[in-house]
């Protein structure tokens, strides 16, 4: 009998000031709910920032994925501070360069381009989740 594999922890930018941050957050939900529901789990960045025990246990010593909206990479830093063994990254500010023409707007309610950008970022993230899974990172 094998134990149920643990989902890979995903932290996203809390992006309250910019559309790219909001797209990062939406991408995390698209990934964990639509694309890889059995394999990825969104962890609240605010809990990681504050060193919450339960959230840190999800991350410590494991491979994790950060989806960030800007170059400050708060999500990646939050995962590293929580003790992730390795932090894989999706940078929405890079994703948008690969999808020229998208003009994301809004924060709470992303426009259509914002949602498309989030989907594109989530698809890149899904590839990374598969890669981690293949390497046994979902122990």
């Amino acid at each position, binding site marked *: 009998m094998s134990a149920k594999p643990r989902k890979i922890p995903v*932290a*996203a*930018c*809390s*992006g*309250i*000031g910019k559309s790219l*941050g909001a797209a990062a*957050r*939406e991408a*995390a*939900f698209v990934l964990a*709910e639509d694309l890889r529901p059995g394999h990825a789990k*969104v*962890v*609240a*960045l*605010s*809990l990681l*920032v*504050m060193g*919450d025990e339960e959230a840190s246990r999800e991350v410590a010593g494991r491979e994790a994925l950060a989806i960030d909206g800007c170059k*400050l*990479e*708060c*999500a990646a*830093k*939050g995962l590293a*501070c929580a003790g992730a063994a390795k932090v894989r990254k999706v940078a929405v500010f890079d994703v948008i360069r690969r999808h020229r023409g998208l003009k994301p707007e809004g*924060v*709470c309610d992303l426009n259509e381009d914002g949602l498309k950008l989030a989907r594109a970022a989530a698809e890149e993230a899904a590839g990374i989740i598969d890669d981690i899974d293949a390497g046994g990172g979902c122990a």
Partner: protein
Amino acid sequence: MPDLPRKKIGLIACSGEEMAEGTVTRRAVRTVLETLRPGDTVTLCLPLFLAGSEGERAFARFYPTIAVDGCDKRCAARATAKYSARPAASIVVTETAKERGCGAIGTARRLNEAGLRLAGEVAARIVEETDRLLAKKPRGAGRGSDRGKP
């Protein structure tokens, strides 16, 4: 008369991605910033405190802030106090929801009608606190007034 910088209130939402109440904090804060008190408020990014943004930390040291948290773990309030200064006011969505007898509010990804109404209620609370704080002197009671005392 010298042209002094205008006093503004910093709003810090927990944004908690694991619960719908975290999404309520975002929507409430953005509503205040964009619609209800656009000239009087700015938003501060909670994770930037950790990432070491001196701009965020400095603002919260010198200007009043309102922490808006989704749950009683109060990450936004505690982070602000830890990295800058004690917030002038603290609002917890689960407490407001309980006071209002609010039922299911949707998910972290999508709020339902009740969740959107709750966000409106929380925004109104933020406005009350903003107006209260703006009526005070910049370093008034609520934050900083007891700092440095033995």
